[in-house]
């Protein structure tokens, strides 16, 4: 069930749009050694840390589906992964942890590992990843490292703009930009 401690729904929508634009426009440009950063994966995880399951699920599924249509990979793969991750992370936040940015980063890293691994598994199952074991070294690990760096940056930006509104923090600091602007 969603709670009153969540940020405004507008923040979720704006986050989704920004993530989509970053993935479609910026990500192909900043490819490193064949690894493309997954902005959408990172933003969905961060959103799930600060919102309840329903919002996170809708955002994750919708973004995943759009990107599945935009790429040549298995259609529905990213939607499935983001759905699972959004539910898992948003459920974890219900008072399980009591930490700050360090714990957030640990959750983010764990979710990124799970997400990138799940994608490789789904690709392997449908035959789109014929070199599964090699891909774990050549794709999954570099992608996790790249996404983690981007995740740290986006998490700091998110907390600065929206404030720490995660469930465990009791509703945030009240000094975020969105609260000042009454969004």
């Amino acid at each position, binding site marked *: *069930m969603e709670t009153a401690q969540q940020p405004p729904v507008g923040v979720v929508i704006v986050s989704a749009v920004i993530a989509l634009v970053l993935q479609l*426009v910026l990500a192909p*440009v900043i490819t490193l050694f064949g690894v493309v950063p997954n902005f959408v994966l990172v933003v969905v995880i961060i959103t799930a840390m600060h919102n309840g399951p329903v919002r996170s699920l809708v955002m994750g599924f919708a973004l995943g589906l759009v990107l*599945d249509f935009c790429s040549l990979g298995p259609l529905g793969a990213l939607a499935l992964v983001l759905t699972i991750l959004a539910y898992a992370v948003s459920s974890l936040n219900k008072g399980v942890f009591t930490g700050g940015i360090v714990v957030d980063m640990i959750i983010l890293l764990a979710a990124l590992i799970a997400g990138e691994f799940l994608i490789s598994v789904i690709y392997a199952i449908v035959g789109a990843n014929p070199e599964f074991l090699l*891909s774990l070294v*050549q794709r999954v690990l570099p992608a996790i490292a790249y996404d983690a760096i981007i995740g740290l940056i986006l998490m700091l930006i998110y907390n600065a703009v929206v404030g720490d509104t995660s469930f465990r923090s009791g509703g945030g600091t009240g000094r975020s930009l969105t609260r000042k602007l009454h969004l």
Partner: protein
Amino acid sequence: MALPKQTPKRITGGVLAIVLSFVSLGLITLWSYEGGTGAEANGFLHSARSALATVILPFDRASSFLGQPVDALGAAVGDATASDATLSELQAQNDALSSMVMRLEEYRLENERLAELLELSDAYNLESTAAHILKKSIDSWNQTITIDKGTEDGLAVGMPVMSPNGLIGQIESVGRFTAQVRLLTDPNSGVAVFLQANRSEGVLTGSIERLLYLNYLSLDIDVVPGDVVVTSGAGGVYPKGIVIGEITSVSSSPSDVYQTVVVKPTARVKYYEEVLVLTGRQSEVTPSAAASTTTTATGGTDTSTTSASDDSAADENANENSSAPSGTPADTGGGE
């Protein structure tokens, strides 16, 4: 008697998660049922994907616009240790000359073998159309590029795509104004090839490491680094004789059935902004449907991105005037 007050049922996260997961699994299943990856795949989802390409065209153009200065910066940094423009010019010149040598060697060998068949038309006389590269793949799992030509320009799924230096891939999804090309280096790509030197045939596949592997060459075949690999034309998707690359390493162990052969592609996508899409063979097109955007490509390895013939300009004009393209692809269908 008062009825008990009913509260509306709310969708819980768990239920929604299960529903959306099943929807996703259904999509994956349907996508696989339609053929999955490859140019031969066809169905509702693949058609919807092609249709959506028009919607995201502004994003593609924005990415292309953003990518230009980033690419320029990358090139500048890479060349910083050399004399800037000179290095780039020499690199391009070297690529062109290397490609030309390979192509001439291919012609020489073919002329020797087919001297008695000179009356046949040139098998490499190809129709092509130039396109700009808009952007590269948006994920790590598919090695693709998006180009700015689509069905409006006569492109279709399955058409081969090449750079000035050789083959780079095949169109797998095409919208009205854009098309997505799966590169040869993608693990899901494959093309029938032979060695220029001894005509031994094999199948070239991409890999997750972005290397090309030449498969099914038995241990008794003489293969040495430097041998040139060209398309064999088997399978009917790629025309025969297009240069792909040269062998960089050969290895095998006593227990192996086949040799492990690594091929370095002559066409490096990151150095180009334009590509050529082979839309058909001149000998196969009808003269009724002329398309002004098409040009002539010969031999599959060209030094120009807009006119790919290595014949004289007069010959090229004569070809264009005498045989107008129909836009019908000579090679469509499944990947090899």
